[in-house]
């Protein structure tokens, strides 16, 4: 799996782990498109499992200083993982809409096109930059603004009034994406539940969450469970599509025997270290 990426110059192996220059990418679509294009993958038939793995690996290397963009990459990671899961489900008929990748492909192509347009805008900008206007323009009397008939009507002022947006005091210069749900909270929730039992139902973790927030909570809980899977602190089981998803505590000592609902160890923290998870992982640091 490593070969095509190294060739692409996207990843570099450093001190035993993969480093991605996430700064080079303007966002998750950019990174995804790069992974696809550089490996010459058919965009209409994306090998979703492989691309998802590569994407997740890249996202893991986002540094704590890039938390702002980390959320956007994680959202995409969640989408990829969801698609990957859906690909495993049986599909009915040959309705193309049923391809779980369809919306992603549409977005990627759309984004690629936008990038093509920006490249052309850049060319146009450079061409325009080769021409220069009159450098010095004589100062001349200006009509006083007070004498200028004003055509603006009240509707326009009203429209502007309705459009006024009070800026967030913490957010004068940069928009800080204040996430309603922190993944780290969900990680803690899962670890807490697994401190008291060897397994927990996914749905139980979402109990009491309703309304608009429910979806985000679901996504973040799922992401948290994936993160813990990666840290080898838990593993996931689902007997049938659409049946309950169970999160099992994993005992690093019984690796390979994970099927027998994990042993008696409660050393999730150690398991975490095991996977190099001593970095301040991922998304959190919320403004209150």
């Amino acid at each position, binding site marked *: 799996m490593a070969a095509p990426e190294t060739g692409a110059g996207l990843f570099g192996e450093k001190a035993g782990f993969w480093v991605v220059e996430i700064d080079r990418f*303007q*966002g*998750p*679509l*950019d990174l995804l498109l790069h992974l696809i294009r550089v490996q010459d993958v058919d965009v*209409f038939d994306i090998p979703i499992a492989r691309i998802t793995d590569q994407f997740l690996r890249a996202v893991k290397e986002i540094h704590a200083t890039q938390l*702002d*963009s980390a959320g*956007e990459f994680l*959202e*995409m990671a*969640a*989408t990829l993982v*969801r698609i990957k899961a859906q690909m495993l489900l049986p599909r009915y008929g*040959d309705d*193309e809409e049923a*391809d779980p990748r*369809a919306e992603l*492909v*549409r*977005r990627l*192509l*759309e*984004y*690629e*096109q*936008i*990038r*093509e*347009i*920006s490249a*052309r*805008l*850049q060319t*146009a*900008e450079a*061409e*325009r*930059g*080769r*021409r*220069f*206007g*009159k*450098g010095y*323009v*004589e100062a*001349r009397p200006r009509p006083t603004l007070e004498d200028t008939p004003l055509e603006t009507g009240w509707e326009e002022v009203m*429209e502007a009034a*309705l*459009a006024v947006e009070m800026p967030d005091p913490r957010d004068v*210069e*940069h*928009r800080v*994406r204040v*996430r309603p749900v922190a993944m780290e909270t969900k990680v803690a929730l899962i670890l807490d539940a697994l401190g008291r039992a060897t397994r927990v139902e996914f749905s139980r973790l979402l109990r009491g969450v309703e309304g*608009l*927030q429910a*979806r985000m909570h679901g*996504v973040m809980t799922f992401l948290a469970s994936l993160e813990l899977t990666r840290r080898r602190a838990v593993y996931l089981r689902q007997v049938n599509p659409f049946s309950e998803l169970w999160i099992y505590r994993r005992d690093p000592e019984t690796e390979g025997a994970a099927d027998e609902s994990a042993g008696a160890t409660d050393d999730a923290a150690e398991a975490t270290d095991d996977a190099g998870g001593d970095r301040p992982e991922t998304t959190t640091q919320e403004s209150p």
Partner: protein
Amino acid sequence: MNASQIVEAVLFASDAPLKAEEIARADESLDEDRVEEAVRELRVFYDETERSFQIVEVAEGYQILTRPEFSSYLERFDTVPRPSRLSGPALETLAIIAYRQPIGRVEVEYIRGVGSAGVIRSLQDRGLVDVVGRAEGLGRPLLYGTSARFLEHFGFGSLDDLPRPEELPVVLRERVPLLPEGEQEDGGAEPGVAAGAEAAQLDLPDG
């Protein structure tokens, strides 16, 4: 004074494009047609006498600009103002707004996959993008479009000078309204711009 001279004087005294009807304000003897005619005469004259400048159609107006061939000489002078260059994210955001206008922030962000409030704000501050209306629906989100200064910055005569979709490697077609999937947490700020926005539906091949 003949019309050509007056039109030339006005164009020479301006550092921004002027529309024919604006130029016509300089004298009672002028109207839009007279101005257009004078512009044609001047163009021929500048060409034939090999002036270093020419009249260019920019932002639905006229402006005298140096010919591009002279840029290398002019770039050496501190007294010749440098054109500004936009960043990658700014260009990307402008591209989306230019082709999809009127368009809301949430829709821009869905297409780019990243938050864009800051970029849009700075494009507004530079006068390249304006609020052009509000969408229907919850919160009545602001809709953005490109300004005359956008055309000026890129040297376009009008929006028709933007690269045509069919010239692009990836073809834009009619699109169904953009329906963000779950990964959008800006709760409720549905981009209700389906009606006005022309956009792309990229059809997937069979299978």
